[in-house]
């Protein structure tokens, strides 16, 4: 403090900061990236451990015997599904009833804002069927959920069969202290959204569903099961939920512990764990796993049916059976035993899962990076923005001697005019609002005038508006009279830097991955853009590092990491579908990534673009 209030030392310090600003920024950026990449290195990570006492030391026995019968039920379900051509509601109701559950149904309809071409749906009408196993001597205050989606085609029949088998087996057991809800949801996430909103009687996205008749109190945990073959080679755990929310780490620990105990291969992000952390390939494997998690989390979309539970503070995960060409196979009985064990332990919970971490990244199933370790990586990037802001502040404060040159003696040098700052800010935000609202509003018009489908119309409109924003500086200048001053762009840049810092900081607190990826691309341009840099080169760099292009790189990177590389053409198509999915996720489930990008990040980038073309 004394250091800063002493004018001499202060001057020395600011001089140092201004002089060394650029090198410090470069150092910070490199350090941030290096720190992030180092997170996947095993000695820097922590081994997972069970924090919850109620699930740790208690022993449970898994005795589920009826895997074969469950598969038979699954086949029966498949036959009925084929016969009805959708969800066999009556059969499910009857079967669940005969297993001694209280059965209820919920019907829902949903009209998508525009057709979803990935899943080929527009007007969605469906029914959820759920049965409640009432725990003896429990007052209906707590519940656990096991769900299996009723998917199109031949998918997930085994999951429904196993769900019904488990229901029958659980019914005959006496140690349940929480009601268990067995849910078969139609139209995957849309059905799940309808059910959850019905259960909690909220309506966040304007869906239309019939109210639920039976409830089991507050839901403590949920698992969603996806199983499409009779035998599997490994189980994959999916954690990423809506808006990048993650379930409590103890849920992942529980899954891992039981996989170890029962001897099932388990993966996360579809990647097995490797023991050779000290080799390059071992490290790159861990880094790939972590990068996949980061990309998935940053997308903000629910990556399984569990993803929507997290909004309601219900810890949930999806378990996906994978059948590859490995030798070692696991049968349904074993999966049943695994689930039984997990539910027995969840049943033992005295409190909601809260002991372990909610913010983490996982380079493998047995290792995790907690928030305390990964936040510095983001902090190093964010500090660049502050350093540049400080630099600008100092420059602005020091500019009065500059005006002594006699450029503008009469004009007050410290006030470049509120208008000249406000105009670009307002205009770029208006563009953001247009980007947010117009694509869906104008789809009909676009379809009438151009030979495109609705979905294409929405996506192309979005891209068109996004590109049109590049012409913004001209529009701004038309509104502004006179020349922009040197002061003007500095103030504008100061505003833009602080704005971006606040935005990214808040985003990273909620969804670290999204914040970090955006920081990675936006911080360099925010730091070094001035009107005096070579225009063409800077413009090219800015466009290449804009949020839209970042998304494109992420699509390619994701495909690369998943070991399904795509050609440029396919990548572009994928990019288009990702945009439409993002808009749909926002409209259907309330994902916030699209509005965040359209309403805040993109305008911020436009401000920087404005600075580049400052006259």
């Amino acid at each position, binding site marked *: 403090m004394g250091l800063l209030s002493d*004018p001499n030392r202060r001057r020395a310090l600011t001089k140092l900061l201004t002089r060394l600003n650029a090198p410090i920024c470069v150092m910070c950026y490199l350090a941030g990236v290096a720190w992030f990449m180092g997170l996947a290195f095993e000695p820097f990570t922590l081994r997972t451990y069970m924090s919850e006492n109620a699930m740790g030391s208690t022993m449970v026995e898994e005795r589920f015997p009826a895997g074969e019968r469950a598969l038979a039920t699954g086949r029966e379900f498949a036959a009925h599904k084929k016969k009805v051509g959708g969800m066999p509601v009556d059969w499910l109701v009857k079967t669940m009833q005969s297993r*001694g*559950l209280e*059965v209820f149904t919920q019907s829902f309809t949903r009209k998508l804002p525009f057709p979803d071409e990935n899943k080929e749906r527009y007007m969605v009408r469906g029914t959820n069927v759920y049965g409640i196993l*009432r725990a*003896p*001597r429990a*007052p209906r205050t707590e519940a656990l959920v096991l769900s299996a989606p009723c998917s199109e085609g031949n998918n997930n029949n085994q999951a429904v069969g196993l769900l019904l088998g488990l229901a029958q087996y659980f019914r005959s057991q006496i140690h349940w202290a929480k009601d268990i809800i067995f849910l078969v949801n139609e139209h995957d996430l849309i059905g799940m959204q309808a059910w959850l909103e019905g259960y909690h*009687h909220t309506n966040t996205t304007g869906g239309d569903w019939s109210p639920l008749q039976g409830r089991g109190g507050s839901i403590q945990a949920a698992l969603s099961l996806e199983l499409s073959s009779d035998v599997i080679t490994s189980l994959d755990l999916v954690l990423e939920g809506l808006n990048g929310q993650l379930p409590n780490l103890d849920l992942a620990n529980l899954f891992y512990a039981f996989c170890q105990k029962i001897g099932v291969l388990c993966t996360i992000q579809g990647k097995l764990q490797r023991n050779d952390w000290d080799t390059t390939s071992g490290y790159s494997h861990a880094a790939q796993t972590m990068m996949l998690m980061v990309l998935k989390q940053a997308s903000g979309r629910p990556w399984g049916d569990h993803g929507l539970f997290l909004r309601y503070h219900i810890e949930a995960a999806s378990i996906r059976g994978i059948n590859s060409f490995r030798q070692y196979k696991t049968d349904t009985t074993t999966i049943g035993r695994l689930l039984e064990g997990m539910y027995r332990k969840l049943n033992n919970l005295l409190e909601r899962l809260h002991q372990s971490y909610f913010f983490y990244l996982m380079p493998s199933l047995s290792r995790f990076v907690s928030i305390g370790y990964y936040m510095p990586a983001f902090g190093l990037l964010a500090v660049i923005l502050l350093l540049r802001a400080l630099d600008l502040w100092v420059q602005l404060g020091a500019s009065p001697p500059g005006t002594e040159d006699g450029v503008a003696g009469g004009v007050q040098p410290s006030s470049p005019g509120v208008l000249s700052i406000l105009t670009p800010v307002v205009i770029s935000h208006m563009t953001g609002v247009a980007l947010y609202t117009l694509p869906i509003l104008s789809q009909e018009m676009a379809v009438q005038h151009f030979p495109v489908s609705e979905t294409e119309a929405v996506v192309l409109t979005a891209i068109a508006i996004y590109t049109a924003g590049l012409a913004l500086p001209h529009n701004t200048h038309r509104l502004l009279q006179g020349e922009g001053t040197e002061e003007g762009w500095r103030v504008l840049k100061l505003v833009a830097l602080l704005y971006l810092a606040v935005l990214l900081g808040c985003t990273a607190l909620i969804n670290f991955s999204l914040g970090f990826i955006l920081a990675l691309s936006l911080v360099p341009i925010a730091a070094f853009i001035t009107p005096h840099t070579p225009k063409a080169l800077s413009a090219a760099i800015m466009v290449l590092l804009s949020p839209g292009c970042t998304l494109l790189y992420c699509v390619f990177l994701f495909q690369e990491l998943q070991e399904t590389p795509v050609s440029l053409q396919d990548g572009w198509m994928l990019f288009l579908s990702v945009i439409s999915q993002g808009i749909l996720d926002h409209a259907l489930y309330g994902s916030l990534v699209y509005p965040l990008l359209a309403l805040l990040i993109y305008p911020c980038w436009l401000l920087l673009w404005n600075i580049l073309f400052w006259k």
Partner: protein
Amino acid sequence: MLAVLLCVLVYVFVTADLQETNQVKDAEGQTHAAEEERQWEATEVETNLSLTDTPSDNEADHGQTYDLPQPPPAKDQIQEAAEEKRRDSLETNLVDVPSDKVDHVSDTKKTLDVPPPPPAKDQFQEELVIRPLHSGDTYASFQFRTLWDTDFLRGSKVSHYQLFPKSLGQVISKFSVRELHISFTQGYWRTMQWGQPFLPSPPGAELWVWFQDTVTDVDVAWKELTNVLSGIFCASLNFIDSTNTVQPSASFKPLGVGNVTNQRFLRYAVLPREIVCTENLTPWKKLLPCGSKTGLAVLMNSEKLFHSSFHSQALHIRPVCQDFKSTAWELRQTLNVVFDLHSSDQGKREWSLFKMFSRTLTEACPLASSSKVYVDVTDNPQGELFELSPATPLLSQAVVLGDRRTYSVYDLTNQATFGQTRSLNMLLRWRAAESGVNMLRPLLHGERYVAGYGLQTGEIHTLVYNHHPYRAFPVLLLDTVPWYLRLYIHTLIVTSKGRDNKPSYIHYQPSKDRLQPHLLEMLVQLPPNSVTEVTVQFERALLKWMEYTPDPNHGFYVGSSVISALVPSVVAMDTNSTQERPLFSSFFPCKEESSYFMRVYTEPLLVNLPTPDFSMPYNVICLTCTVVAVGYGSLYNLLTRTFQVEEPSPGLAKRLANIICRLRGVPLL
């Protein structure tokens, strides 16, 4: 008393009126929805009329009664009358079936070989009712009734006890208790699967007490009483304090004789979190005259009783009329258990006493004046559904909860009941394995849940179902909500069939932080065949950190809401029952059977409050505060202070002079 009579009369006329209109309607066969709507309105008007017509002279003051022109006073008396009526129907309506092989129950009573009854008129009766339920479960309900022929309402000190437990007798006289009702329940009664229970009770512990009007400081007496009871029953009743005690104005009226209805003397509390187990059962059993040594109580094997789907034990003390001039104390101990026999043996449905309790009956309690086992055989008149062995010649009919039921009666005081083996082990074998759980449609039932997400606000939804096809009836809804859920009472909305349903009586007592809970009582008219939804929003309070329970992330409980109603009876609904009854008895709807009193408890709620992370509160708070303070201070300082540039380096002489000045302590040059 006169007022009560008058009220009953008015009520009977109203219901008779309704019945007639209904019958007319039925005859015309008009069942259009519009018609129904109109009818509902008519009913509402009539009921309201009847309610406001009655005299209100003996009405207690209603505390804070909001936004109501006139609190209809009659509901108290309706309920009182109903309670009385129900008692009558339960006790005295045992009608023997006129068939050749049926004995007179009352006759068999006298042929006992038990010791002569005690000289005073103390009495003890025990009975067990077993009802096979729709869902395949079995409901066993024990009831023990001890009658104590003493009259210390007048203040005479009593120190001689025969059958009545001394511990309770002392409690009654010490605290001047007029009525005491306590129940311990583990589990939730599943109305949709099991129908109505004989005696409803909410999950956890419930205690309500009427004190005599001689008590001056009711709160002190209540506090001491709860502590004493806590000791007697080994329960955490001592956690009852002012934050969970309320004084309902209408929902809980005295069930015994007496006419004090001033709610000042009533205290009601529920502990939804209370867990009931053997340590509560043992003291309860000890209150029985025979203990658990003989009689029906031998069946109470705690290992089996707690291996069930539902367990509820209760105790009711109230003054009753002994003969026409004197009163006596009645102690009723009830134990209700539902066994889930379906799950335990793979779909084969049969039960026996031994299977349920792992004991059989060998003798009645020698002190009991009557000791009976009833088995509900209503659904099985010809024995086509199940087979009951040993068969009993005794049949008994009773109207229970508005439904005419037939029971097989086993009289334990009759040695012949035990047969050759000297033990009674009833066995019921179902003929067809029924598949699945068919949901029942009980005439009245309620459910409750918390809506919304996040830890800031929420909404409590209470749904009350009236499944009666054509009758509307009023219900009293009682909600007790702890203070840490701050109810926004202006958001209270009652809707039925999509329309606003204005309660005709609202009694709301706002909460005081850390002192008293919210109390909300409403009289709501339920239209026929409808769901009435009561919603109210709340905000979750942030507690002080010492106020959190040791397991704050489990959530906080909100007790069940209580729905009390006079429900139109199923018997009255059934116009085709003339085969069983003589024609002359069925023309005008009979008063006793037209409706019955019922209380329904909804499920308790578990609500999460905003909870700090208790693992390292101090570290986090201190560190954050320090960082924020330092950062903010410096930044603020830098941004606001203006700094003067010192004149460039002074000369050597001046510098030396300054050093000297500093050494001398005088201001610098």
